[in-house]
């Protein structure tokens, strides 16, 4: 069964500092990988996704993520955070080729707090 681990429950970063949120997955093959963001009281918005090809993917809001097969990781990064980036971030995996009879499996989330 596929699973996702986000080891950091809560991260606090100063505005303007760099950010890295960790994500590790467990799956029999290379899955599809996603990062979603949930702002307070809001739904889930896709930041970026990896299906195949270049292992460094660019997303919205200045975020990027790097897929490392050897480490089963898909860490999210941003060079300089803004106060508006404060939110809950979820890493998720789905089977290669689409959802089929499987599902999108989420990590437990990382809450990001930004301090002035």
């Amino acid at each position, binding site marked *: 069964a596929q699973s996702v681990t986000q080891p950091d429950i809560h991260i606090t970063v100063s505005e303007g500092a760099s950010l890295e949120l960790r994500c590790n997955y467990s799956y029999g093959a290379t899955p599809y990988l996603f990062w979603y963001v949930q702002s307070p009281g*809001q739904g889930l918005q896709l930041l970026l996704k990896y299906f195949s090809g270049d292992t460094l993917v660019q997303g919205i809001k200045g975020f990027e993520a790097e897929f490392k097969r050897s480490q089963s990781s898909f860490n999210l990064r941003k060079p300089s955070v803004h106060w508006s980036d404060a939110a809950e971030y979820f890493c998720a995996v789905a089977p290669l080729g*689409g959802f089929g009879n499987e599902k999108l499996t989420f990590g437990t989330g990382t809450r990001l707090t930004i301090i002035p």
Partner: protein
Amino acid sequence: DTAVSQTPKYLVTQMGNDKSIKCEQNLGHDTMYWYKQDSKKFLKIMFSYNNKELIINETVPNRFSPKSPDKAHLNLHINSLELGDSAVYFCASSHIQGDTEAFFGQGTRLTVV
């Protein structure tokens, strides 16, 4: 235009009541989902429908009954609501195959008192 829309956004009700949450997507997707987000923000799938047919049914009490009248709609009916049902429920949709992601609604915050 909202891609995946859920109604209502907030729902406060008493224990024992029956309530429904509606979901509609205008993306032409063939698969729709219901996820439950608990108080610790954990997102867990409840159901998945593909072209109106149930394909995923996780361990969910049978008080929860999804209904898909067509592939653009997936409603969630909950009977005999309990305090532990309080959560945020998210509807989502996607294509079942191919390079695609799931699109989520804004969520319905259900509070059972």
